């Protein structure tokens, strides 16, 4: 695999967007950056700018107002991109599925590559998800030669 392709696996920069999450999954996502978990070991940086991000981590349920934002952010990311839906809310809407202002999980708006169950998802699970996502990307890259 060429250096350029390899570096795509080695340097996933992430953008975290909180669609109506209860904060539980957010803080666990943030915790991944901190010393005990330190996902920078995998070359991951939280860039906070869709134009630089490779991985979009979405926590929480989608509502009509944030759906627009979510779509925009997704569109502004460069390709190839990965989407990770974190927590029961991100996957399906979780406990809030039937709340009046909830549309459901992230996959209602944008395609999701990896689902991370849990309420909240554990930091280890989020790391697993990134690894799984990168595995998927690697497959695509190898396939495309």
């Amino acid at each position, binding site marked *: 695999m060429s250096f350029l392709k390899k570096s795509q696996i080695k340097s996933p920069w992430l953008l975290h967007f909180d669609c109506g999450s209860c904060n539980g*999954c957010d803080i666990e996502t943030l915790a991944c950056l901190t010393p005990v978990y330190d996902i920078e070991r995998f070359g991951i940086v939280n860039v906070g700018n869709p134009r630089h991000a490779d991985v979009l981590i979405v926590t929480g349920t989608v509502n009509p107002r944030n759906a627009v934002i979510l779509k925009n952010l997704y569109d502004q990311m460069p390709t190839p991109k990965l989407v990770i839906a974190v927590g029961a809310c991100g996957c399906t809407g979780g406990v809030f599925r039937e709340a009046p202002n909830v549309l459901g999980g992230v996959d209602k708006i944008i395609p999701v590559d990896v689902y991370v169950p849990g309420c909240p998802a554990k930091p280890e699970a989020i790391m697993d998800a990134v690894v799984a996502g990168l595995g998927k990307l690697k497959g695509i890259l190898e396939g495309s030669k």
Partner: protein
Amino acid sequence: MARTVIPFGPQHPVLPEPIHLSLVVEDEKVVEALPTLGYVHRGLEMLAVKRDFNQMIQIVERVCGICSMIHSLCYCQGIEEMMGIEVPRRARFLRTVWSELHRMHSHLLWLGLFADSFGFEALFMQLWKIREKVMDLNEGTTGNRVIVSVNVIGGVRVDLDESQIRWIKDTLVDVEAGIRKLQSTIMNDGTVCRRTKGVGILTKQAAYDLGAAGPTLRGSGVAQDMRQLKYAGFDEIPFEPVVETAGDSWARGNVRFRECLQSIDLVRQALDKLEPGELAAKVKGKPDGEVVTRVEQPRGECLYYLKGNGDKFMQRVRIRTPTFANIPPLAAMLPGLDFADVPVVVLSIDPCISCTER
């Protein structure tokens, strides 16, 4: 001079949660700031018509993950008051333990984010490193790091055994040492003070009139803490509300820092008062009537207005959270600030949009 309009948020790296501020700045001084909410609105008060009053515990726990335990505590207390249930003494102290552990992790989390808002990455890392120990306490005792889910109507559903109590106490010694080491950085470091002192001043009168709550209110010199209402175990645990008088971001930060230390002390006291006994009282019947109940969350006074009508579904669950009350003071503080201070001041009220919008 031409003005710059900045769409600040909803997605913005210094904002942990989505909120939008339409900022108008002139030479990087804010002249106008209008907030937009609704990006995390779920309408979960409304779920009361679909989930019975027991299931609502799990719903209100997820009003917000950071002080989820205190939300369910408030809700359960309300229902207990409505139904006239006496909570066993052991349960009350256990509730105190977990609610103070929550306060601790919440304040450490916030202090970290606050440090991040003025670009002090190492401090953020250090605080979150310490916080992990508290998170371990949560997970080790309840089975979940964040949403501990210990409350049931009438008491708690998880107990602590002796070894766990000892473990908590030992860990707290470490945590306290770690926090105290950072005291001088948070309170006296030159660059930190330059970014926080005198920034976003809320006078005592303004704080009171605008309805500020929690550390935002106490940072402006008003000694008000809902734990003085003596709910859970606080009737037997003496404590003094932490107050600062400067009313700026620095003062709000310090209130939280000192409350962190205070919480360690409260947990210790509560653990010492634990006596063998029942975990939960028996519950019969359906809630009927109307109550207003208040607790102190890390971010301040939280008020639940509950109305039942003898059905298993509540007629109304109205949740007023501290950040909701702190948004107007924020809106009043923003104009006149340097643009660079906007994140600092926004973070200084510890915005929790999740519960603001529910």
